[in-house]
Structure formats: C-alpha cells, structure tokens
C-alpha cells in the first residue's frame, strides 16, 4: 500500500519551487506523521526542488508515501554534476551569479538533503541530467 505523488518543475521557476514539498507536507500531516519527520522531509524536498529550478532545464519530483517511510525521486534533464563528491561538500556551489543574487545557490542544497534524510543516492550524467533519490523513515 503506497501512495504516489508526482510534480513537475520547470528550470528557472523559483516561484513555484516549494509546491511539491508543500503538497507532500499536507499529505503527511493528514497521515498523522510526527512533526519532526515531516519537517526533515519537507526541507529535503524543498532543497531538491530549488536545485532543479536553479540548475536544470526541467525536472520531476516523485514521492512514494508508505506506512513507515517516504521515498523521493527527483530527476531532471540538465547539465548534470561533474563531481558528485565535491558537490556534496557544504558550501560548494556552481550556481550562477543571478541565482545567488536571488538568495539561492549557497552550496548547502545537497548536504542539507543528506543531513535530513536516512538514505541518499545521486546519479548523474554530464550533459544529460541528474537523479537524486532519498528515503526518510518516520520516527
């Protein structure tokens, strides 16, 4: 028994980044998931959404909500990540000046996702896109 939710994100559309995390939060609240877990999940999904808006051309957030855990797959068509290990470093950023001026791209995205999730897996093809998969267990 699992519930699947899908959201599309357009590259550069910062004003709509946050829709998926907001919707996922509403579902989790109705499922009586504890507030702490919800917060971790919402923060992680939001960071992933902003990553797509900041770097990619287009992307999709898929959430599979289960009784004990949630699995999130964020896949995008975009420039990809050359060095994933480096990208995971807090503070490392390839965000453009414009994106930084908007208050995003501080290089905390992926490390923040890692901090708030129980499992994280990143796959990327330079020039094609990136898929970020993470899992959170409810406490």
């Amino acid at each position, binding site marked *: *028994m*699992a*519930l699947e939710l899908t959201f599309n994100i357009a590259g550069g559309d910062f004003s709509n980044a*946050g829709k998926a*995390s*907001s919707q996922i*939060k509403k*579902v989790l*609240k*109705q*499922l*009586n*998931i504890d*507030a702490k877990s*919800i*917060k971790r999940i*919402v*923060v992680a999904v*939001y960071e992933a959404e902003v990553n797509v808006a900041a770097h990619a051309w287009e992307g999709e957030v898929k959430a599979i*909500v*289960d*009784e*004990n855990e949630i699995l999130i797959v964020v896949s995008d068509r975009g420039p990809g990540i050359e060095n994933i290990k480096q990208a995971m470093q807090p503070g490392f950023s390839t965000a453009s000046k414009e994106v930084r001026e908007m208050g995003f791209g501080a290089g905390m995205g992926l490390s923040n996702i890692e901090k708030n999730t129980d499992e994280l897996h990143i796959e990327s093809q330079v020039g094609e896109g990136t898929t970020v998969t993470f899992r959170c267990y409810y406490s």
Partner: protein
Amino acid sequence: MSEKPKYHALKVDAEKCFGCTHCMQICPTEAIRIVNGIAVIDDERCVDCGNCLRACPVDAFYVVHDELDQIESYKYRVVLFPSVFIGQFSEIYSEGRIYEALLKLGFTHIFEVEQPVEWLIESVKESRKEVKEGPLISSFCPAVVRLIQCKYPSLAGNISPRKAPHDLAAHFAIQQLKKQGAAENEIGIFYVSPCSAKMAAVNQPVAERESIVTGIINMKDLYNRIMKLIPAKEYTDTSDFRKYLSREGILWSLPRGESSWFRKKSMAIDGIHNVVKFLERLENDEVPEFDFLELKSCNQGCAGGILLTGNRFLTVERLQKRAAGYPRASQVNTGGFDKEAIKRRLITEKIKPKPVFVLDENRTRALEKMQKINNILCQLPGIDCGGCGAPNCHALAEDIVQGKGRMTDCVFLQKKYVKEQKLKSEKAYKNLEKIWGEKRFEADCNKKGGRNEGF
C-alpha cells in the same frame, strides 16, 4: 476524552438560514456543511473566526452573549472593553461622553482592557526565551491560537504562554477595587467582546481552568445602547478611569499594534486567509527567521472585528489620532500597585496542539483513505460548486471516506448515474432534499442568495 467539548460562541439560526453556501465557501478550516438545508458547524474544526457571520446574506449567524441586566447583582460593576470600542464611534462623540453613557447604563467602573499594558509587554517579551526554536507567536488573537492548535499543531509550542489584555485589566481592576475595600464577591466583571473568537476564549480559556470574567457582552449590543444614552455634552470628569491608558495600549489590537513594541525582527499579519498562507510557509521553513509574529484573524485587526459597527479603516484612523494624545506605556505611573502579583497571573500553561485534520489515527488506514480520496477525486467534477453540501470536491471526497458523505451527493455524478440508469431519478431528487431541505424545490422569494460586494 476527559476534556470538555470545545465551546463556541457562534450559532446558526435555523429559522433564518436557508443553506446558501456563502459561509461554507469562506470558512478557513472547511468546518461548515449544509445538512437538511441548514449550515452545520463542525465543533472540532471551528476556530470562531466569524467569517461565516460576515459572509451570511441573511444574518443567520449569531453570537451567544450574556444579558446586561445581570450586572445589577453586583455592588462593583466593572465594564472591560478593548479600545476599538471607542474607535468605532463617530468623531463627534468624545471619549468622555461615551464613558458617561457607560456610567448611565449602570456600570460603576470603566476599564479599557489595554492597561497597564507595560506589564503585559514586559511579560510577553520575557516569554521569548521560553520558545526554543522558531518565532514567538502572539497569543492575542484566539482565532489564530485555535487555528494553530488544530491545523498547524507543530507550531503550537511557539505560541506565547501569556494571557490577553482583558486578563491583565481584570486582575488590575480587582486589585484596585480590593484596595478600596471591595470584597471579591461584590465585584462583577463584564467583558465587551469585539468578536466571536474572544467570546469563546473568555468563556473557555485555552490553557486555564476557568475564566476571570463574570459575563460577556456583545459589543454591537452595547454600541446600540450607548447611542441611545449618550449625553449631549460632558457633565462628569471620567478621565480618572483612563489614567493608566497608553499609546501602545490603544493601538494594541490594530495591525502592528504588538510588533511595533516588540521590535527586533518582528512582523504583523492580519486577515485569517493571509495568516493561513504564512503559517504554511512557516511550517515548511520557507521564511526567514523571526523573533516575534503578530497574527490577527480579522483584516485591520480588531477594528475589523465582527461585532463592531462602522468601517474598520475609519476605526483605525480614529484610534491612531486618539493614541497620539496619550503617553507611552513606559511613562505611565503605576506606583502603589503590586505589579509582580499581576504579572505572575498573566502566565499560562503551554498551548497544546489539537490536530483535527488527521484522516485516521492508524497510519495504514489513513494511507488507505488517502488513496481512496484520490480515486474519488478522479470521479468528481472539480468545480467546487458546493452542490453536495460540502465546500469543495476535495472536502466531499474526504467526507465520503470518513463515512460522512456519499458519491451520490454530487449533483454531477447524480446526473451521470441517472443517465446510466444506476440511480432512479426519484432517488436522486430525494438525495438533494436530504442536503438542501424538503421544501427546497418550492418557490420561495426569501432565498435569493447574495451578490458580490458593491451590488
């Protein structure tokens, strides 16, 4: 389950209500359904914001209040009212004349609730450190407090565990009267409420055992009585009653009335739908850090309270002018009173969350229900017409999985089922009668509905 049922001051007059759905559509917690032709409020979801009363084209909503004649049983008859009460009168009536009319009505002591407000300011500022994470949220507006408890339970711990100005004024009044030799049972304290939320909160305080107030008076009711009694000019000097009133006190219930003295990084939001949008973001951690948030359910704060008369912007304008003539709260001399004793009484227990939107306590069943809702939504038209007696298609889908509604409640699906011969047209007609009342299809010139503002 040992808790008392949630008290509400808002009621529906079944004689006047004809189920026009205006209230149902505007309710911020989707607490209203139409059953048998009448609006029915869900007690668990209702936060007493009063938007239903405001939206009703036939005045079918009313608030429960106490009668004024009960003041006669007390030797010391204290009237407590928020400053907005004065603000709603036209400028031709001086505050002195309004005070005199209150004395004529039979009150012996008059207190605007926002005094001596410096003590509450200190206390709220002290409560900042009692909240560990995130902003301190003002506990001033009871509709917002209830909204957070039921819809944003994770933020309940951020609400300042402090009482409201009317508690401050009530304790201050009692201390003052006792000093003059009054016995506690001789004192009757009557609070004039600007809204249904304050009425409910005064009657059933969120985190206390009982209310300090003897009776609650409807502000609209009192306004009408004052207008009848108001003297042509001032005969007695009532300024002594306003000795402890300050600029901050007068502006307290208006937008920025609290955030302006809290300073630091604070922000004020008015209007419950604006508050909802902001709380969603706050809960998602999508807003910058704040020290203090002032959230008020009514547009223009209490100047927009549902029991006020007159235009809310004019009320704000008058109060701002009035405030300029009063000293700052810190300049008010409250020597001779036991400030610490009253400050101790302003502290409440932590506000507890009371989530009501959980689909099921059991997570597996909740997940099943969620899936069913999604499947049902695929069948519904998505036009949120309210023809089923629920505010929108999503709410109907939720009602169906909770056993409170049926697919055939949807007027669209009914047509479809009749066409597919799954439902007899007689049965479909009966279904609609169940929601909209038996005589719903009869001609009746009283049920014209409302129009957009300005028409």
